[in-house]
């Protein structure tokens, strides 16, 4: 029976084979295009160089050549005199011709390897060998075993005797003295001196210098050098993305960037973490950052493996160019490009996840039954005033009715187990002869150990003329709760072709298919509530689960909590799932009419379509009233964007200037259709809509929006010391009223590099000291569509005829939510080992959309107006330290720290409750206001709450008293769910071929309202529901100091209602990730015709230190656990092969 019910998707065993074939076809196609492109490469023209006839230094000539071509020079300053004067003029000549002219005299020779020009001194010795000289050969590789071409190898005592390594990293040098010292040096690597000591073969490994010179950031509509950038932007490299088994970008950003809070609160398959950059800046509109992929906002976020790096724009100077959508910060994703020779990379990771160990302990059957007996007795004796004897009888009589089942039996004379009618004695103690025949751990039944497979295959090739990168990924995740899964098949193709100096074109494409089944929150809700005497399946007379004639389990639909509901049976018989497909393409052209000016145009189109479906079977639970209910939902959307961008940059004397101007346009349309049918007597055969007896409900809808933007920016630098920038953007959005449709956004920023000043020259230990400040305004249009229209809905009927009913009191004046963002920062570097940034920010979000009330007698209630105001103020600290940087062991360690204070500064009309959250000016958005628990009355066992003492006029006197009536308790502000400090300690260690990294995440100073504790500590108010083990410590005559009130059947005290009884501190420290990898050395992998191979093992959420008693302290931003799936512990094994 079960087999027939499963949705037929592409992942069952038959179609998986088919998919395999499809995947193979796509791969072959991708590789064929790669080869095609590689062939095309040979036609691309070489750069032509023109140099004026003036006399100049070698350095400036080299700089000019680098600028005019894609070549870079590699050399050692010890060997090459870059100040040597050069006299040359050239017009439209090949690089080789120019270089020949430059180096025709003198002792410098050059070699061109790919796009690198390697300079070395001419080694006479190679041509005049003498007998007593020794020849040393060897190979220079990097930490990963990759050969390094172009390394200077020279004799330390005789600097003119030197060679450079070839493309395979090998070198041969002849030395006069077998005891000579060889010096190896290469830009970006730490140099090494090696005593030859008579050897004829010396292979060495050079380590990369940690410090990144001239870090280049991808920023809004271009790139910028970190050193001169006036805004606040953080670069995150792709290595970070490898330190999570999730393939969602957001999940990888936990603790990586100061000022960025990532709420990675669930292990539900297919979900992504929430990101808040510098706090929450809106009440009703979106607070999520804008994602921009390869220059296009709204482009699909690629698989983590396809991401080269990310830049997070945090302040106005960095983000304002995105105007109306920049208020919550911007995450710019750059995907990988092809580079180097043709290579293929295959990566596979296998992750095993399970529920993390926690402090959350539920009662077993014996404890739960005993507690229930006690509650019945207490009820009868203390509340209803009956005698002890009557109370005992009452407890005996009623026990099984309350728990719903009697799991106890006793052996009779013949050794058979017979039900034990009265399992507890008159003191509520379990009969020692009682045998527990069955017991259900509902939490155990909900969770499972789950596996995630992550395959990634890529091919790439690149040169200065063209490059191509293509990949295919398959991600298959089972959730750690039953029936929750997510699968994704995706691929990208990136291509850039430089036709000549004038014209360049390329494209990015992304294809994605995903499907899955969402987690059903009833699963954990019921798991916390169902008591252990309730069985999942019906039991036979031998207490074994019953099986029907077809071999299917027979579910138990009778329980005292939600009669006729059994989530395991529902998940088994009901259907629920989704699938979606997305296609994206973004071609561009780039023109360079003359030096310094580029004009580019980019268009993009994204098409998505998907289906959702669910079926509730007719026999039990929600499907009963309509005799089975089947829903199918299909949706599609289209997004088109266009961008025209002109950039002009020019340097002259000490000045540098860059000006950008652009026009951008975007249009979005989505449609959705949903239909439901009812009446499914033949549901085991078909759940299609057409198989239902009659239609139930049909809906459809369309949403459209569009935007236009004009933008302009200017960056000016003077003398490598002073930089100022300004930006302006004018945006129009269809989401706002006609009068307020256009908004202006701008920013100014300035940077001062103190280390470039003369007065800093003597402060040798400071490598870098930079001050920057920025201020600007950006907007938020994430408020949904059509809010300004006054409309009538057409979805209602009266007497089965369509009725136009007033829907919304629109506001023609509705406009942007705006953010004023001030940032002041210091960036520093010391001792070549320590780098850091300290930032202060003040973010004022104003014109926030809130409902404003109008007299109801005028026929309306509220409408949205731009009235609210929020402020986020904070400090960010990021430190990066090369703790060990010489020798075989390298250890780089970093710390991020964020302190953010959120305050509501203006509301529409005073205070209000937004559900359980109390909003008032002066409070945080994450304020926790509730009744204040005052413990248990020692004498009566009643719960107590605090209340304000009031005078005769009803004003609080400032005194507090206690009450045993929840309704009379006063409300108090008891804390804030947002932490005072959070961040992470990040570490990377390498030793020979091993690499080791780990992250320790911390969060200090937040509070959580542990609502689940309330559910499972009901004190008898919900007597058929299970209890936490803590509930054992409840008040009794012999336990008057108990922390929990008297346990009473159908407890009326409301002790389990929302109060500070379940409020907890949320301080925690977590070993968030730990990765150990091994890179096979080149020698080994080459033997099996590979270019590289790496294996690694990674653990996530391995250890948590906290006093929080919930299942995991990593909660959603509201600081309330709820019935979601907590973060999981997982271990991954991965292998990564390049060939």
């Amino acid at each position, binding site marked *: 029976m079960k087999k027939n019910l499963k949705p037929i998707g592409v992942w069952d065993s038959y179609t998986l084979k088919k998919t395999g074939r499809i995947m193979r076809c796509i791969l072959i196609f991708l590789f064929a295009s790669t080869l095609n492109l590689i062939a095309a490469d040979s036609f691309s023209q070489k750069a032509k160089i023109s140099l004026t006839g003036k006399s100049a230094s070698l350095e400036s000539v080299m700089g000019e050549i680098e600028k005019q071509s894609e070549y870079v020079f590699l050399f050692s300053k010890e060997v090459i005199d870059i100040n040597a004067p050069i006299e040359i003029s050239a017009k439209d000549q090949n690089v080789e011709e120019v270089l020949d002219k430059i180096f025709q005299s003198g002792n410098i020779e050059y070699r061109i390897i790919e796009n690198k020009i390697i300079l070395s001194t001419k080694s006479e010795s190679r041509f005049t060998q003498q007998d007593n000289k020794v020849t040393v050969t060897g190979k220079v590789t990097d930490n990963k075993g990759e050969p390094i071409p172009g390394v200077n190898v020279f004799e330390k005592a005789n600097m003119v005797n030197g060679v450079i390594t070839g493309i395979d990293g090998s070198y041969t040098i002849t030395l006069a003295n077998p005891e000579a010292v060889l010096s190896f040096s290469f830009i970006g690597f730490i140099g090494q001196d090696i005593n030859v000591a008579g050897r004829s073969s010396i292979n060495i490994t050079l380590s990369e210098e940690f410090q990144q010179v001239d870090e280049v950031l991808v920023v809004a509509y271009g790139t910028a050098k970190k050193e001169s950038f006036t805004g606040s932007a953080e670069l995150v490299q792709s290595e970070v993305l490898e330190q999570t088994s999730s393939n969602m970008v957001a999940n990888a950003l936990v603790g990586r960037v100061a000022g960025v809070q990532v709420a990675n609160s669930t292990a539900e398959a297919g979900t992504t973490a929430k990101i808040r950059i510098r706090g929450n800046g809106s009440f009703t509109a979106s607070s999520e950052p804008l994602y921009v992929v390869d220059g296009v906002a709204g482009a699909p976020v690629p698989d983590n493996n396809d991401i080269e790096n990310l830049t997070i724009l945090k302040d106005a100077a960095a983000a304002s160019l995105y105007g109306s959508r920049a208020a919550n910060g911007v995450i710019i994703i750059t995907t990988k490009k092809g580079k180097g020779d043709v290579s293929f990379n295959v990566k596979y990771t296998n992750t095993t996840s399970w529920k993390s160990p926690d402090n959350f302990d539920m009662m077993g059957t014996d404890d739960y039954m005993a507690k229930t007996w006690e509650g019945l007795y207490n009820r009868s004796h203390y509340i209803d005033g009956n005698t002890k004897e009557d109370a005992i009888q009452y407890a005996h009589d009623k026990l099984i009715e309350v728990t719903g089942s009697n799991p106890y039996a006793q052996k009779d004379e013949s050794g058979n187990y017979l039900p034990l009618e009265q399992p507890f004695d008159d003191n509520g103690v379990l009969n020692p002869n009682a045998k527990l025949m069955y017991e259900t751990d509902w939490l155990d039944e909900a969770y499972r150990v789950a596996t995630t497979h992550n395959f990634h295959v890529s091919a790439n090739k690149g040169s200065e003329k063209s490059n191509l990168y293509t990949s295919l990924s398959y991600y298959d995740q089972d959730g750690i709760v039953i029936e929750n899964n997510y699968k994704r098949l995706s691929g990208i193709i990136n291509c850039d072709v430089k036709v000549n100096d004038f014209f360049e074109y390329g494209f990015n494409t992304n294809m994605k298919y995903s499907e899955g089944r969402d987690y059903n929150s009833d699963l954990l809700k019921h798991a916390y509530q169902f008591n252990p005497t309730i069985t999942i399946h019906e039991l036979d007379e031998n207490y074994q689960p019953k099986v029907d004639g077809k071999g299917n389990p027979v579910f138990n639909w009778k329980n005292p909590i939600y009669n006729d509901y059994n989530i395991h049976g529902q998940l088994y018989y009901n259907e629920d799932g989704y699938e979606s497909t997305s296609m994206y393409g973004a071609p561009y052209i780039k023109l360079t009419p003359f030096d310094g000016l580029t004009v580019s145009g980019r268009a993009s189109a994204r098409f998505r379509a998907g289906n959702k479906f669910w079926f509730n079977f007719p026999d039990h639970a929600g499907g009963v009233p309509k005799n089975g209910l089947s829903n199918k939902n299909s949706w599609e959307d289209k997004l088109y964007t266009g961008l025209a961008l002109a950039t002009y940059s020019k340097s002259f004397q000490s000045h540098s200037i860059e000006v950008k101007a652009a026009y951008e346009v975007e249009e979005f349309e989505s449609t959705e259709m949903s239909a439901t049918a009812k009446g499914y007597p033949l549901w085991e055969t078909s759940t299609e809509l057409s198989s239902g007896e009659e239609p139930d409900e049909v809906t459809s809808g369309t949403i459209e929006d569009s935007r236009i933007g004009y933008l302009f920016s200017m960056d000016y630098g003077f003398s490598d010391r002073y930089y100022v920038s300004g930006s302006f953007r004018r945006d129009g959005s269809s989401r706002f009223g006609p009068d307020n*449709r256009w908004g202006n956004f701008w920013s100014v920023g300035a940077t001062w590099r103190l280390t470039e000043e003369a007065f800093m020259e003597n402060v040798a230990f400071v490598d870098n000291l930079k001050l920057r400040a920025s201020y600007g305004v950006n907007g938020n249009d994430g408020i949904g*569509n059509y809010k300004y229209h006054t409309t009538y809905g*057409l979805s209602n009927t009266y007497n089965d005829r369509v009725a136009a009913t007033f829907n919304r009191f629109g506001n023609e004046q509705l406009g942007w939510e705006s953010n004023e963002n001030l940032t002041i920062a210091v960036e520093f570097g010391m001792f070549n080992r320590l780098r850091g940034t300290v930032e202060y920010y003040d973010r004022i979000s104003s014109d926030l959309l809130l409902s404003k009330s109008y007299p*109801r007698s005028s026929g309306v209630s509220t409408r949205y107006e731009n009235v609210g105001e929020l402020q986020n103020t904070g400090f960010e600290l990021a430190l990066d330290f090369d703790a060990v940087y010489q020798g075989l062991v390298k250890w780089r360690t970093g710390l991020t720290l964020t302190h953010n204070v959120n305050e509501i500064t203006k509301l529409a009309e005073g205070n209000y409750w937004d559900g359980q959250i109390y909003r008032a000016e002066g409070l945080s958005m994450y304020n926790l206001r509730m009744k204040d628990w005052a413990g248990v009355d020692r004498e009566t066992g009643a719960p107590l709450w605090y209340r304000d003492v009031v005078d005769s006029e009803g004003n609080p006197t400032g005194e507090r008293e206690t009450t045993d009536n929840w309704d009379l308790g006063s409300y108090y502000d008891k804390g804030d769910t947002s932490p005072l400090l959070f961040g992470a300690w990040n570490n990377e260690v390498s030793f020979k071929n091993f690499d080791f990294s780990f992250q320790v995440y911390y969060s200090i100073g937040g509070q959580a309202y542990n609502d689940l504790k309330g559910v499972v500590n009901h004190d008898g108010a919900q007597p058929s529901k299970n209890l936490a083990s803590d509930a054992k410590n409840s008040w009794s005559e012999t336990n008057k100091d108990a922390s929990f009130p008297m346990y009473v059947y159908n407890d009326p005290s409301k002790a389990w209602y929302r109060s500070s009884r379940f409020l907890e501190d949320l301080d925690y420290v977590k070993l968030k990730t730990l990765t150990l990898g091994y890179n096979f050395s080149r020698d080994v992998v080459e033997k099996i015709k590979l270019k590289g191979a790496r294996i690694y093992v990674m653990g996530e959420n391995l250890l948590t230190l906290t006093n929080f008693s919930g299942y995991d302290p990593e909660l959603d931003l509201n600081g309330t656990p709820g019935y979601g799936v907590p973060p999981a512990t997982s271990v991954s094994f991965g292998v990564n092969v390049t060939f």
Partner: protein
Amino acid sequence: MSCNDDFLDHNPSDEVSSDVLLDTEGSIEAAMNGLYYNLSNPKDYDFSLYQMGFAFVNEVRADDVMSNDGVWNNLFYEAYTYNSSKADNLGPYIWNYSYFAIDQCNVIINDGLLALDDEDKRKDYIAQAKAIRAMVYWDLVSVFARPYIVDNGASPGVPLITLSEHGKSNARGTVKAIYDQIFKDLTEALADIGSESDKLRVNEAMINGMLARYYLDLGDYAKAMSFAEEAVGIVGPMSANELRYGLSGTPSESMLTLVNTENAWAPYRTHATYWDDYDGMGRDIRIPIEFAEQFAYDDIRRDFFWSQYNWKKWAPYYADAYESAQQDNFNWSWPDRLYMYGKFPRLDFKCSDIEAYVRTGDHSYVSEWGSVGLGNYTYMRSSEMVLVVAECAARLASPQTAKAQEWLHKIQSRAIEGAPVSSNTGQALIDEIMLEKRKELLGEGHRMRDILRLRQDIQRPASTWTSKDFISKDDPKILLPIPDTEIKVNELINEEDQNPGYK
């Protein structure tokens, strides 16, 4: 940038903008349907102005029903115990939804529906809107303001709003101002209403009925009688056989019925669900036994108090219900407070094996089982008008006793086969008529209106189980408080304008 602005213009696909709502005949039809939707159906799925609001607020404040505490929703409990406060939901619900309905009438009336070519239709539609506006004002003012009869309408009324000006503040004005508007609207509506008689829409009979009620409130019995007779002339009373099966359908004597259909209705918000606790959703309203015992043994209306099982059992088979259920007569389900299942049964109740259900009381044994609580609410029906004629005839300065007895007999003889014509005269006759009205219209939302206009004190029977068993006609808590939400944002209504008893 004008071309840009076109690019940025988008309209929602499933809504119609307010400025083009009344531009086509089709959307005018939809807007007219909307007016009735507003009266009947819960806009936000939590309240229905007529099925719940006015129907029950005018019963629980009086003496013929009792409201339970804390069973399903406590909406009416505070009004029942005369313990209303500004924190209650009931007052704001009635106020807000009334003005919402009035505003939508104002939109239609002020627009003039010039897009309609058919002049008769145009007039008819506007007449409907005016009559609905009058009806809502007539009910609204009775909840928040003192009866007209007290001081000829000089007391503070409710804001009189006849233009659709969203966001505007309006002062309370007087009761008289409201009554003047009611009269004006009804008179104009009567002149323009079409001749087609549709029980689901405002019709000539209903407008006459409203005018009869209007003159009753003013104490003008001659005029009230004349309009009531006019109404009965258009729609006469139904038969005894029809009455037996309850009022949840559209009775033939209906003058205005508000319907609900499955597709338009949120479950459990109908008038019927409040009387029926089959799924634990009802139970809010019951009848004290003292009043139930006023019904004679052979009064067919007494059968409305049968146990729910009997009504459930036969609900799907109305044709057989009466005879079969009679065998279980007087199996009353509670000793002193009675559920009244039969008068407002759920129309959509289904149960595949009612025998098993009756036997076990456990519906989980029954495979097909359910109801979303469908049932229409009849706002006005001919029997009321018959009794108004009787009352007016008896109350006239020179009473027409024979006429009063004759019209009373129309109702009495329908309920009890072979009932004799009353021989009472004077006050005794009036009392008999008023008692008959209570019995006939029990649960339909009329009792409190009569108490208010007649300036009577309320004495409740013992089994209503409330300490508030006597209410003086001057008790300030008879009125509900003006909602705080209104006072807070309406610049012309302040705390001083609050009803006495809530300041």
